């Protein structure tokens, strides 16, 4: 077999994120032995499109045990394990904004406009999602369906109840700030269960993609989302599992898998000029890799690099 195949050329870099269970701090496992369709990744991986300026920085440091008057090196040991990664998201979306903002990311709920607030005023009342709703079809009382239109964004989640600490069904989108008494919409303001209405049926709202948190929980309500907002200075840290894939061109594919990535930089943008008077604004994000345990060898690791060679490529 030809050695030329060992010279790899790649196309674009694509990003995929999946939730981390914040209670157990367990990430979503990416298994390179299983086929991963870049255009239709398996659930719960969410495709976040192309990224630019993908940069990995390993900050791990090593120490050396020395002996003798000459200080001859005898053995090395790992003093510190640390890895960082930064990207610019080419696409704007709720999750891209959240990751690039680092703190909680909020849904601006449709309001009556009577009580202005910087992250969205007092919202119009939600409507109950009826039993039998799924992650893609939200059943509602038929009398309220005329309030909705195709193309609108909605959020589907439960009311805030006293005693809740982490907010969001299925995926934690924020924590309760103890100095304030949240209103009943507090969960829906940070929930990731947001979808776009693709059709209105006789019984409910069809969404163009499944809610990330799955079928609505009992007691969930529906409200319209008119914008997204993040704010600098909040306490919550976004934490997600991530896969960055180098698209194959010459044959092989490379994955960089981070079991737990925490956003580690404030909201910034990268501006790329396209033409005079026109620029592309990318969402800049930086992350710190958190530890996870490899189930095969029990080692505590922060990231993986996988290479899937084209069939027939020599190993050495």
């Amino acid at each position: 077999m030809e050695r030329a195949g060992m010279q790899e050329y790649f196309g674009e870099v694509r990003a995929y994120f999946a939730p981390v269970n914040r209670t157990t701090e367990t990430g979503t496992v990416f298994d390179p032995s299983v086929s991963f369709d870049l255009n239709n990744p398996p659930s719960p991986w969410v495709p976040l499109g192309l990224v630019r300026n993908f940069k990995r920085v390993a900050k791990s440091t090593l120490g050396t045990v020395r002996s003798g008057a000459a200080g001859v090196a005898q053995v090395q040991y790992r003093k510190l394990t640390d890895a960082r990664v930064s990207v610019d998201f080419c696409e704007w979306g709720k999750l891209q904004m959240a990751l690039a903002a680092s703190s909680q990311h909020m849904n601006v709920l449709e309001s009556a406009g009577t009580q202005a607030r910087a992250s969205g005023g007092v919202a119009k009342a939600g409507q109950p999602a009826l039993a039998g709703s799924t992650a893609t079809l939200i059943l509602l009382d038929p009398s309220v369906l005329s309030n909705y239109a195709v193309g609108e964004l909605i959020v589907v989640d439960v009311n805030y109840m006293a005693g809740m600490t982490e907010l969001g069904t299925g995926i934690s989108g924020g924590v309760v700030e103890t100095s304030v008494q949240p209103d009943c919409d507090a969960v829906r303001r940070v929930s990731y269960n947001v979808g776009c209405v693709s059709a209105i049926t006789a019984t409910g709202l069809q969404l163009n993609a499944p809610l990330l948190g799955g079928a609505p929980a009992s007691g969930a309500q529906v409200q319209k989302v008119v914008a997204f907002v993040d704010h600098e200075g909040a306490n919550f840290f976004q934490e997600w599992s991530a896969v960055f894939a180098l698209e194959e061109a010459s044959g092989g594919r490379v994955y960089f898998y981070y079991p737990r990535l925490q956003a580690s930089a404030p909201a910034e943008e990268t501006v790329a000029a396209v033409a005079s008077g026109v620029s592309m604004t990318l969402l800049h994000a930086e992350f710190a890799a958190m530890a996870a345990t490899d189930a095969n060898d029990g080692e505590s690791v922060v990231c993986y690099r996988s290479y899937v060679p084209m069939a027939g490529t020599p190993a050495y």
Partner: protein
Amino acid sequence: MQAAKDTFLKTLATRLAVVNPARTVIVDGASRAAVLTVENETALPAGTVLGTFLLSWEGAGEVVPEGPLMYVDCKVSYGSEGTSDMLGTDRGRVVTAMDAELLRISEPTHAVKCDYTKTPPAGLGSNIFWTRPVMAAPTDANGVLMRTAAVRVFLFAEVG
């Protein structure tokens, strides 16, 4: 390099048959997806370039001196004189539709290189890959609106 050129032609033709099954050309009495290579055809049907993606192979060379990766440039020509129903005024729309088709059949920008002299075609153990088409400004001659697009195709020379 011949296998790379054959693979590029076959890949675009196969994808065009999916993207727009109606875009076909009759060659020697047989209907084919409307992607042809100039050097493969001894006698192109009259007016072939209208409604057909015509590939012309141009310069070639090593990407890095004495390295295994080579390139060969491809010019894709296509055009339209419009439809008689519209008295030719829709020629721009036809060319614009072909622009979109060319972009679609160019993705993904890689394919497994095969030896098409064998039946069935045999994989040669590497990919070819290419740049996205760069479209030049259209030209207008004798009522025909023409477009050319440039694509650079990369291949490993020693494997076919």
